């Protein structure tokens, strides 16, 4: 199957493929270093709390959400524009050999509270660059009859563009936040700058 695919390629490209398929010389010293490093590692086991470490979009398990709501309300500022000079002094993620190259302090997400007063709405969601503009990702909730819709979303420090979506189709900016320039689609969006360590 693959051989046929290769044969349809330009001869020069076929040559590149053939050359690239050749094995590379492997440095035995590097391999020995790897085996030594492995020997120094703790034995791997099946983890019980896999949900903690699975890569996931910003959906917190229910207990954590409750903890957030109870304890971190002081962090987010109501409305769109948020400045956190002193965010929570979160512990650094456990350092691993293979971590992405970022300063640890600047990647800890902050809980940002979004609020929209929309008494006539049947449902409200927040969408933005942090959830792929997915209307189903962050539905907001309303407690009483006063039409105040809220949600906490963990956002990485930095600039984020977002919008509210009312009743699934009506996109509107946050009245309490700076405006992003025209979105190119005839709507207006909002901007939030989430504080972190200095850039």
């Amino acid at each position, binding site marked *: 199957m693959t051989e046929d695919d290769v044969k349809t390629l330009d001869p*020069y490209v076929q*040559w590149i493929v053939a*050359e690239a*398929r050749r094995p*590379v010389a492997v*440095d035995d010293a590097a391999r020995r270093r790897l085996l030594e490093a*492995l*020997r120094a590692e703790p034995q*791997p086991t099946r983890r019980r709390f896999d949900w903690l470490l699975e890569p996931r979009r910003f959906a917190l398990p229910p207990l954590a959400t409750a903890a957030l709501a109870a304890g971190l309300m002081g962090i987010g500022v109501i409305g769109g524009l948020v400045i956190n000079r002193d965010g929570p002094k979160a512990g650094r993620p456990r350092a691993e050999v293979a971590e992405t190259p970022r300063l640890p302090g600047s990647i800890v997400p902050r809980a940002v509270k979004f609020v929209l007063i929309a008494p006539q709405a049947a449902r409200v969601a927040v969408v933005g660059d942090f959830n792929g503009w997915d209307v189903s990702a962050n539905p907001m909730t309303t407690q009483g009859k006063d039409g105040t819709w809220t949600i906490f979303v963990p956002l990485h420090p930095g600039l984020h563009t977002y919008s509210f979506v009312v009743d699934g189709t009506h996109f509107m900016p946050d009245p309490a936040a700076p405006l992003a320039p025209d979105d190119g689609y005839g709507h207006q969006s909002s901007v939030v700058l989430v504080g972190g360590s200095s850039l």
Partner: protein
Amino acid sequence: MSDAADVQRVLNGDVDAFSRLVDRYYERCARFAVRMLGNRDDAEDALQATFLRAYRSLGKYQERDKFSAWLYRILVNQCRSIAARRNQRDRVFVREEALLLNAPDRRPTWTGEDEELVQRVLAELDPLLREAFLLKYVEELSYEEMSTLTGVGVSALKMRVKRACDRLRTRWERIKDD
């Protein structure tokens, strides 16, 4: 001895079973890392990080996945990390004369210089095109496997492979006409 069985042995306490897995995959992973990153130091870093991470995350490996695919996913991501870390803006300068001297006359013969040439030519490709090209034609994965591995859709991957081939061919056309 299947990969899944070896993984189970490691989790049950026979850590030497992991070195069998390393033996089985090291050279193949090395080839991808060298072709992808273009130099051995970075490739060795990628290999080290890949196998260490695989070892540490072994508890998360699901038997229904192919071990090689699982390992390759880690490898591809490690290569991306390392490439991002170093300054990729330095464009590799390819000496035109070297290309002409090594022009394929439909009977390519192996010399040490050819490898350097191939590395340089591959390095000219945008990293994501190079990655798709290598996974398809050097690692000989199917598009479905590549999609699972990279999280990118099949049509996007096909497009990247096609663009990679077009770029390589165009490069050659321009050289040989000089």
